[in-house]
């Protein structure tokens, strides 16, 4: 069960209410000449065996402790200058508490525009466009499945670190008749890490070790180069994220330098889509306790890859299957690997409604959210059934 303050709860429900109030506004995003508004709300049910996922999902009745809601829009002062923002609330077991946060809020100035290219800058809180889905990872309607593949590091608690930054982003695109190429370069400012993120990273059991000091993510940098060939028939992307996590107290200095590189390939046909994404996560750490004369350094490399096949039976119904493999440490592949097999279906009876259900067979402990399984031995195997319903406007 998630415990949250009454204020957080009121604000979260206000978003859901606000979203409900505009449900009668039919159509896609609500368009006006100068501004657009959009919103979404989705609720999941999870039932699992072996381990808990997003709440106490192994209990008899399953878990309803996973919802997402958001409302946002864009105001255009001119075609070259706009302001965009989105408020967002997410409850995901003990990993997220339903509190409302500013998902993104930035000013966008386009300083160059021709008929085949453009360049501009965004300043504010910006989503990191890593891989094909990170920029919209929390929106049911844009995910490839209800639960993301391990490529997006849901289970590690890193999600909060690399999902958006306060900083600046330079963007550009150029295209011709057969291709369209986009480049985004994002530089974030040094930011303090909040206690919820720390709790997720440490698995909920090491808070005392990290308390009493400052934890920061220093100057995160991300870049993404992507190309759509032949109208999006082929989509290729190369993504990079680099950030240094530091912990500093009177007695201890710890630094973890993280670099993540992602390669994405997607092939879209009329009925079938094939998506392959691979990531390499390199981590170098330094641990120093001067009072004890102790210093330690090291590093590790982890890999993650998945292949998903989507079959569109018709314009409303899509079936998908995915095999997803991760090696937490390449020097110990047999001890740190995990595999998730997913089968699911997605039904969109109208553009505004989406329903999905999926089954996951999980081998390994990396995909299991530790915060939802406190004080217990994590089971090597688990099965998970998830359903989700969502509405957007």
């Amino acid at each position, binding site marked *: 069960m998630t415990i949250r303050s009454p204020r957080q709860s009121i604000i979260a429900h206000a978003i859901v209410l606000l979203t409900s109030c505009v449900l009668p506004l039919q*159509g*896609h*995003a609500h*368009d006006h*000449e100068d501004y*657009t508004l*959009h919103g*979404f709300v989705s609720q999941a049910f999870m039932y699992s065996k072996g381990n808990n996922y997003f709440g106490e999902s192994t209990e008899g009745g399953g878990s309803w402790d996973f919802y997402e809601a958001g409302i*946002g*829009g*864009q105001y*255009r002062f*001119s*075609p*070259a200058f706009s302001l*965009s*923002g*989105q408020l967002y609330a997410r409850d995901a077991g003990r990993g997220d508490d339903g509190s409302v946060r500013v998902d*993104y809020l*930035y000013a*966008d100035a*386009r300083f160059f*525009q021709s*008929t*085949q290219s*453009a360049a501009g800058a*965004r300043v504010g809180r910006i*989503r990191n*466009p890593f891989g094909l889905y990170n*920029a*919209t990872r929390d*929106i049911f*309607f*844009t995910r490839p499945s209800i639960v993301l593949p391990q490529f997006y590091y849901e289970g590690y608690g890193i999600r909060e670190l690399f999902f958006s930054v306060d900083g600046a982003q330079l*963007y550009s*695109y150029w*295209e*011709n*008749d*057969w291709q*369209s190429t986009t480049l985004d370069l994002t530089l974030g400012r040094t930011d303090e890490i909040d206690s919820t993120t720390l709790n997720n990273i440490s698995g909920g059991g090491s808070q005392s070790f990290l308390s009493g000091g400052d934890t920061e993510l220093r100057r995160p940098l991300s870049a993404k180069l992507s190309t759509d060939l*032949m*109208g*999006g*028939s082929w989509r290729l992307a190369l993504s990079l994220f680099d950030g240094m996590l530091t912990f500093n107290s009177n007695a201890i200095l710890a630094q973890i330098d993280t670099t993540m590189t992602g390669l994405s390939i997607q092939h*879209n046909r*009329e009925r079938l889509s094939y998506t392959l994404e691979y990531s390499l996560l390199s981590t170098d750490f330094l641990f120093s306790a001067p009072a004890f004369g102790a210093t330690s350094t090291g590093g590790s490399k982890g890999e993650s890859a998945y292949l998903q096949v989507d079959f*569109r039976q018709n*314009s409303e119904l899509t079936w998908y299957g995915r095999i997803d493999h991760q090696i937490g440490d390449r020097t110990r592949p047999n001890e740190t690997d995990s595999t998730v097999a997913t089968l699911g279906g997605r039904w969109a009876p109208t*553009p505004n409604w989406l329903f999905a259900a999926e089954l996951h067979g999980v081998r390994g402990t990396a995909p299991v959210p530790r915060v939802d399984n406190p004080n217990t031995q994590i089971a090597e195997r688990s099965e998970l059934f998830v359903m989700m319903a969502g509405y957007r406007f």
Partner: protein
Amino acid sequence: MIVLTARRKACVAIFALGVLLGLPARASDEVQLIVNESVSMPASFSAGVLRSVFYGRMQAWPDGTPVRVFVLPESHPLHKEFCISYLKTFPYVLRKQWDQLTFTGTGVAPEEVATTYQLYQKVRSTPGAIGYANRLPGNENPIKIVGAASLPTDQTLRF
């Protein structure tokens, strides 16, 4: 001697440019591009430019007028035909692109209207608008310009 009005001259020039620069004279037997008469057409209206407009990347015409894109629902046969013939893509790929724009705040998805007649009326009455319509048999032009001067139910379009 044939006297060309300014609009007709524009049509001829656009047709010539379209043919010269890659936009097929008749990408489809079924569907034809329509643009509002206020639109200052790009010097090279190629398939790449068209994709840039319909994918929501190009937000202003060369004279600075905001681009306003109108489309039919994803399941409409004319929308499918337009996606395949002009954009060389599938409706679901386009929808994903629009969702990405909407939910990241980085662009504006096209406005969806229910019928071909509503689409025509929107393009006809909105400065900077672009859309598509049914093509009449024998009509070879790649682009049709519509605006206040065109008839409320244009004789050269089918609804």
